[in-house]
């Protein structure tokens, strides 16, 4: 039964990845203009070299990248390289490979955003639950509700304010970068403290900005769950308030939060572009920003592909654990 369910979910994931790779292949080829000629023209314009042989150079580059082959041939070759995680070269930072660029930025982004997302998920969910619980003391509910105001402030704005106050006015935290210069990275105290010191401001700005969204979602769900008949019976049973809150209220209201968490975690590989740019944090978002600025098609393409695949994988993992958190989804096609 469960094996069936897993197989079906796995099939769906493979289908999503297949479509994502295919679309990722097709879209750039539908775009008007020739990226190679555009790039060459740019090089020549900036370098001031001879303009005559652009056509010949473009043709040789096309041959070099296999772009003179028939489309189906290119498509198969594309699959072949994707499977080997060979996403080609960065146009802007040639000869850096796209896979190198991604691998250089990914740990930073996963660390920063994974941490910040889990913290804001936990705090926001708890906050939403406390605000919605009718037996919460009034002052606590008022305080909690006022925190929700932050959800309406964009996080780059919070980032800029934090940066101004803590890095420029008070100089408590560094203004940018991922780790102090000259740190030898390893499993030692200076690495950990350096990472934390540099990661604090960007993490706080993400947490502050996202906590409200988690709290709002949780508040809405818990309010509707608290109107259910099983809450009334739980109260009639004379259960402790804490048990009703956690096991009858929160436990049921949590379900949509998990879906949102999986989607959010799937998204973090694309980075938090604005936060990373503001704090010049060396993550994927910063790379993506640079790539967009320099028309670095292959890097953009690679990051977008990574994003779609990681969302598909995150949803698959969510499907696997969902029967554990909601027994009504038990793998019998429901």
């Amino acid at each position, binding site marked *: 039964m469960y094996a069936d369910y897993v197989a079906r979910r796995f099939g769906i994931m493979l289908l999503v990845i297949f479509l994502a790779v295919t679309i990722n292949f097709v879209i750039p080829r539908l775009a008007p203009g020739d990226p190679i000629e555009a790039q060459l023209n740019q090089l020549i314009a900036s370098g001031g070299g001879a303009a005559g042989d652009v056509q010949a150079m473009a043709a040789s580059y096309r041959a070099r990248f296999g772009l003179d082959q028939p489309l189906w041939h290119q498509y198969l070759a594309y699959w072949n390289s994707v499977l080997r995680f060979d996403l080609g070269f960065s146009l802007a930072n040639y000869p850096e490979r796209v896979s190198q660029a991604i691998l250089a930025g990914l740990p930073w982004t996963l660390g920063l955003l994974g941490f910040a997302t889990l913290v804001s998920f936990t705090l926001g969910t708890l906050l939403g639950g406390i605000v919605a619980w009718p037996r919460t003391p009034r002052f606590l509910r008022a305080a909690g509700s006022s925190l929700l105001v932050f959800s309406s402030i964009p996080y780059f704005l919070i980032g800029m304010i934090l940066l101004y106050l803590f890095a420029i006015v008070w100089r408590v935290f560094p203004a940018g970068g991922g780790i102090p210069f000259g740190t030898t990275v390893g499993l030692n105290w200076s690495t950990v403290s350096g990472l934390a010191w540099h990661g604090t401001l960007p993490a706080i700005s993400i947490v502050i900005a996202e906590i409200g969204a988690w709290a709002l979602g949780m508040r809405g769900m818990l309010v509707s769950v608290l109107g*259910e*008949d*099983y809450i*009334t*019976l*739980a*109260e*009639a*049973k*004379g*259960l*402790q308030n804490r*048990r009703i809150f956690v*096991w*009858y209220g929160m*436990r*049921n209201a949590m379900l949509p939060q998990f879906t949102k968490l999986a989607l959010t975690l799937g998204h973090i590989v694309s980075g938090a572009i604005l936060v990373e740019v503001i704090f010049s944090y060396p993550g994927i978002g910063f790379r993506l920003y640079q790539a967009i600025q320099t028309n670095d098609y292959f890097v953009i393409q690679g990051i977008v592909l990574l994003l779609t695949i990681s969302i598909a994988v995150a949803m698959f993992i969510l499907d696997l654990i969902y029967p554990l*958190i*909601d*027994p*009504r989804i038990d793998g019998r096609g429901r």
Partner: protein
Amino acid sequence: MSQPVLDVRDLIVEYKTPKGPARAVNEVSFSLRAGERFGLVGESGSGKSTTVLALMRMLRGGRIAAGEIRLNGVDLAQISEPAMRRVRFAEMSLVPQGAMSSLNPVLRIGDQMADIFEDHGVRRSAVEREGRIERLLEQVGLPGTVRWRFPHELSGGMKQRVCIAMSIALRPSLILADEPTSALDVVVQKQVLGTLSRVQRELGAAIILIGHDMALMAHFVSRIGVMYAGRLVETGPVRKVFAAPRHPYTKMLIEALPSFEKTAAFKGIPGVGPSLLDPLPGCPFHNRCPMAIERCRTDPPAFRTGSEDHHAACHRTEELADA
């Protein structure tokens, strides 16, 4: 006669509304002896369910404005909230109305029964507790293995049986059953009610059954109370009330029951109940009552004793009794 299990005196429940307080329950008094079966009937909005919620002190948005609720001698209207929590299910349990949705969908049946013992400080070993839960389930006609199931794996009738098993877990002296079968089909209704009846007798607990189905009620309870517009308008032994109702509203309710003997047009009671916000002066039923006289419009009728324990709040109750 020994002390009653439950003694309700002049209970008044009010809901706060923007237009002022609405009296959902108005000066209701009744009492139950040990093991007695009492039925509360009335149309929607007559205050039956509110009465039950008031007994459990679980009114949402409402409050007990006045009156006493003595359960085994203790006035529940006065005790603290933590003390009230300990009374729930230990001394007075509830079989809920919405059987389909009254169980927590993410917890196994056994866990939802075990937490009753845990939160009421019943310390038992895990093995003992498992055995107790298994016996409770068997008592209501379910296999003990149901404790491993989730609610969505059970039928409506099974879920209601689980609720009945829960209600007797701590051996309370009073069970409140708020239309326990309204969500079930007719065949299952009879079976579930039969089960409730059996476990109640075995336990020796008193029971209050809420309902609007007069016929179902007649089979189950020994004494009946009829509510109208938040007031108790007639109480008495169920046979006497059916044979010779002493309030015109009860009479019309009974006449509205379909009968096999005579085929006639289906009779209802014309009109709707009065607004609770703006109660009628005099008798609350006078605008729908075929027997209303001038006095009923101005003078609220007191609860009057008829024969033995058969009472009604009507100015013309004697004429009804003679008819």
